């Protein structure tokens, strides 16, 4: 088991309901492989820095999970086949996951690390 984080951008033009169902499909896929979702963030609608598939906006979703090593591959297979997914990125997670705490501001987290040392 290993921690991964995956971010994907959904096509916002397909409507809220479809977005919800796509997010659910991804999380079901992750959980279906025996992985545990540690954090599920919706960054929501954001302007893209450059157009992708002629879209200027995208709906961002971020998921941090702990799963087997073959899962990222499965995920990416899913993304590639999914036309509503504009972009995706799955990487090994290097940031420490702290339950109950939301992602901290850069300044406070670095200060906190200083105190520990």
């Amino acid at each position, binding site marked *: 088991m290993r921690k991964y984080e995956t*971010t994907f*951008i959904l096509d916002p033009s397909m409507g809220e309901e479809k977005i919800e169902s796509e997010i659910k499909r991804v999380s079901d896929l992750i959980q279906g492989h025996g992985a545990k979702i540690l954090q599920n963030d919706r960054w929501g609608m*954001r302007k*893209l*820095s*450059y157009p*992708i598939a002629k879209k200027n906006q*995208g709906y*961002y979703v*971020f998921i941090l999970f702990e799963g087997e090593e073959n899962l990222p591959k499965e995920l990416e297979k899913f993304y590639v086949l999914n036309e509503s997914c504009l*972009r995706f*990125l799955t*990487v090994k997670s*290097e*940031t420490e996951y702290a339950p109950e705490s939301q992602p901290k501001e*850069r*300044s406070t987290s*670095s200060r906190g*690390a*200083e105190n520990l*040392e």
Partner: protein
Amino acid sequence: MVDELKRRKSCRFCEQKIKIIDYKDERLLRRYISDRGKILPRRITGNCARHQRQLTMAIKRGRHLAMLPFTAEVTR
């Protein structure tokens, strides 16, 4: 000149003890790209090799996710 030499020595990430540069931290990464979208070189940022490498990685990931530009925006 003296100022620049002084500045060059300090890697901001080392100073702040940031061990991992996060590609999700758009505001931070924006400071390290030029107005044309290029990654600033080490001689300007003053970062150490390790952090500059991490930064480059993070910026490239950010670009892939369209959080950062590859080039300056095209005016239509």
